[in-house]
Structures are given as C-alpha cells and as structure tokens.
C-alpha cells in the first residue's frame, strides 16, 4: 500500500495504491491522519489504484472521517475501482462518504 500526495489545479489529492488490509491498516491510518492534520479543507482520495479494502481499512477511513467531521471537513473519494466501490455500497459506507466517479467529478463537486 502506498499513499502519494499529488496536486491538480491547486487541489491536493491523495493517491492510495495497492491493498489496505490488516497488515498495513495502522500504517494507512497514521499516514492519512498526518496528511489530514497537516492541511485544511477536504481530504480527497484518488482510489483509482486501490485494489482492495478490508473491513479494517473501512474502519480506518471512518476513524479519519469522524476526526475531520469535528472541523466540518470530510473525506471525498473518487475514481474507486468497481470492486472497491461495490464494497462501499454493500456495507452502507457509500452513505457515509461522498463518492465520485472521477477526479473531474470530485473537483466539480468541490467547486459547487
């Protein structure tokens, strides 16, 4: 699992690649929290290269989201692969997170 910050039109994205499972969920949480605390605004996650997320991974995202929500900030997910997006739908997590089909769609959403 890798988390790489990128920037498109002055908006920062986090590209998450590989798997988030029990072997790296604590590492993912630490990195995402570090990133969230180091900035303001939404935490936008590009999931185009996220191949698998376990229930532990979902819990990591939820924990970060709860922390952000206290500051009226949120996680925004975009470009999830069908297999991963399916898990969000089937677990009810799609009602917790703002999920967009592409980076463009996420940016359009942010720009209102």
């Amino acid at each position, binding site marked *: 699992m890798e988390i790489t910050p990128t920037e498109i039109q002055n908006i920062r994205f986090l590209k998450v690649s590989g798997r988030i499972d029990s072997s790296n969920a604590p590492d993912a949480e630490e990195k995402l929290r570090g990133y969230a605390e180091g900035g303001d605004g939404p935490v936008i996650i590009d999931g185009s290269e996220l191949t698998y997320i376990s*229930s*532990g991974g*979902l819990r990591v995202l939820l924990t970060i989201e709860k922390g952000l929500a206290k500051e009226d900030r949120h996680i925004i997910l975009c470009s999830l692969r069908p297999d991963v*997006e399916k898990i969000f739908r*089937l*677990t*009810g997590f799609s009602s917790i997170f703002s999920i967009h089909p592409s980076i463009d769609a996420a940016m359009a959403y942010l720009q209102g």
Partner: protein
Amino acid sequence: MESHRWNKIPGSDDISIYPIIRKIDTVSSNSFLLASDTSCILLDPGGLAGQTDEIISAIRRKEREGCMLEKILLTHTHIDHSFSLLHNEELRGYAERVYTHPSGAEVLRIGDTGISQAALLGREMNPCTIGTPLSFETGYSPKTGLKEEGIPFADDMPIIAFHTPGHSPDSICYRLGTYLFIGDTLFIGAPGVAGSIGWSKSDCIASLHGLIRVIKDEGITSCLSGHGDPIPASSVITSIGRILDDVERLDTIATITPEWARATATFGDDLMAEMDKTLTIISGRITFISHMLEELEEENEADRIGRIIEIAAIDDLLTRYHDFSEAYRRGEHRDIQLAQKAAQIAGKLDRMIDRGALGAIIDPMLLEHLTGLINDYMTVFRGYQPLATLTACNPDAIFAEAMRSFTGERDPGRLLAAETDEAFMAAMIREMGTIRVVQPRYLTIQSEETPPDVVMDKQRFRRAIQRLIEETAASGCEGMEIAITSPDPRRVIITCSPDRPVLDEQTIRYFKQAFSLTGGTVSEDKERIRITYPS
C-alpha cells in the same frame, strides 16, 4: 524432552535421544537421533537442508566420541520423511544401512512419485536402493495383531518395529523402551491426507487397533509423532479413538492425486475470494451500524455491536490467506498446500463467527451464504462432492422470492410495534443492517407463458441467484435480463444477462461452480451465464 539437544531416555543410563521437532507442515517431518555408547540411529531424515545439516553435525560429534551411525530407520517413505536421504550425498552413503518395509524399499528403488507423494508435493525423487528392508517374516503377533520385528540396538533396549500400514503401505512404528515413534499415525484420517495414493481404510483400522494394544500392553509413556510435539500415550489413545471414528466414516472418498489437489486448490481459492467479500461486507455492516449508533449517541449499544464480531482477527486471517495465495501464484507453494491453507483458514473463520449474535443484526442471507461456502469447501477438501438436493420447482417463483429478499417493503411494523426501549433498539439495528443495493425493477424476466418446472437444488439456486443479483447491482449494473426458455420438453435453459459485463474472471468461475452445484450444466462468458436443467 527438549528439541535440538540430547536427552536421556527413561529406563536406560546410556541411551539418549536428539529430537528435531518441527512445526507441522508438508515440507519436512521431525527427525530423531538415538545413541547408545557405541552406536547411533537416525529415524526419518526429513526433507529440509538445514535440518539435514543439523543431523549430520550431531552425527559427526557422536562419531568423534566413538559412537557410529549404524542405521537409518524410516517410519515410511513419504517424501517429507525421506527427501534428505535421497538427495543428501552423505546420507545416501548410508543407503546400505536404511531400514524400511519391503514395499518402501521398492518405492525408493524405482522413485515412485505417487506413493511417496513427491508428485503431489512437487518434489523430485532421486531413486535409491537401500540395503536392509525389514521382512516381518515372523508374521502377526497374537498380542498386538501387528507384524513385528526386532532391530538390534543397545543390549538392554532393542528397537521393535511394528508394521502399521494404512497411511501408506510401508508405514512402520518403532518402539524403544517406553517411547513409541508413530510416524504419521495421528494424521491418517485427516482431510487432505486420507485418500492419498497408497492409503487404505481397512489397513488404517487394523493398524490403529493394533497400536492401541501396543500402547496399552507395552507400557508406552510417550508417543513421538512424525510431525509436531511428543504426546503422552494416554492422549494418543484418546486421539486414536477419535481417528478410528473418522476413518470408519470415510467411504468412497476421492484419491488425493496432483490433479485432485489442483482442482481443490482452485475451488478453494475461488471460495476464499467469495468468503473474503462476504466477511468484509458483514464486518463492514457491523462497523457501519456501530457508527450510526454512535451518531445517535447510543455509545453503549455501539460498543456492544462493534464487539459482536472479531473484525481485526478476521481481517488478519483473510490477509494471511491472501499472502499465502500470492506466494502460491509466485510458485512458492504447491496446490495441496494452498488447498490445506484454505481449509485451515476457513475452519478458523467458521469458529470465529457467532451466528446467533450476528443473525439478529445482519441479513440472514449473508450468513447462510457464508456457511454454504465453508461447508462446500470442507466437503470437497475431505474428498467428497457437495450434495445437490434435486426437486422439481418453478423458476419464476424462485426469482420472485429472490427479488423480494432485496426489495421487499421495509417492515415499519417491527419499529412501531416495539413496546420497550430494548425492542425498539433491536428493530432499529436490524433496519440499519439491511442495506439495499437492488432496485425493485432490477430483473426483467422473459419466460414462456407457463414455463415447465425444472429439476434443481432450489436452495442452492436461490442463494446463487441472490448473490448474482447483488453482485452485479452493487458493481454498477442497472438491470439484469433473465430468459427462461424450453427448447424441448426435456430441457429448460435459464440465461442471466446483466446489462454490462462487470464480473471478473474469478467471480465468473465462482458463479459457474455455484450454479453447477444447483444441478445444472453451466456455460458462461463475460456477458451472460447460461444454465441448462432437466425439466
């Protein structure tokens, strides 16, 4: 008894034992060195280079004390016990002094990759002619019912060999004083072991009865297994009783061949992928409900729900299987090892799921599906075929029932009828655990006016079609067409066509298996799944 060091043998002042006890796997057995003042015996060389190095180094140290290696005894010639004998030049040099059953001597001489399991475990045989097959000429002992033969060792403590076929034709147990070296006796009824080439149910039963007599009548205190730790004799008698029950029930099981292992590993891998998805959904829903309860400031209930399933431990098991499966794809493990790993993980997952507690919260369809997956895999791994209970039924009615499970009206009655806080909370949690991803008009069914009944396993079909509907809907399909046609009076064809191809190769393979087990003949491509049933 400590592994990797010399220990005195009870009842003798000058005999000692050097055990190399390993974790249980199919790569290498335990090894044991036995030494008197003047002679040394190696029992089962095993199959790992590091283990061989340790054995040779211990032998050399003994030689410097004037204690020479005189014999190598084999409990049997399975490759995990004999590989180092066949491939290490120094140990091969002792071939003249190797003792085994004559059938085992033949396995080693011709390099029989079937009985030795070398083909199954992907290991090479380097044929070897050994010098001292045990003849067991004196026949069956009236006391034990087993063929016996004495092997000279120390004056006051000879070794007695007992021919105990069943696990393999050449299986032998050896007694030294109150110790009994039992080879793979404790595994002979185990799934993935019973049914291997050379395995015999009737021989297993006779040998197990004989061993009970040996242990009871000859004052055995400790049994040294070919794999895992030494075990007190009393526990072994209890275990053998259980193994006898298991073996008695084993009828018409599949023979464990490399082809069986390949098919079982593939089946297991597909089912584990499906178990992974199902458990991720179950655990995710529990996390979701717990979160929603927190939002409602019901912290105590959120905490209780969050602990209903051991999410971290389940995640960990799934990750371990994934890592093993990836290593298998890199060629680091054999088919039989993947099949065994899938069984091990599925068994642990099965024991971790509290169906009673979860059943009150989670869609029962998910739990039924998970149980079905585990049962089907364990059935195949034990060497049997999962059963299909075939009855004549109306496919239209099954589709209607499947759709109702997704889109049936929510039941406000439970919430409204709740008269206590507890009942209201339970009803609310149940509602939260019901996640709807299928729209009411998702299925378009095209069938003849009165389609004939089809002969199928109704429960399996309902489960498979529910999973297909949910899987395709959650993957972004907006609909699925079901065509029920009857090209002739004896056949009914059910064709399921999602509005776009969303299933990956492994998922398609899973559904092919799932529908095959409903009693139909399946053909599939990325666009559709077609099942033909007798009518």
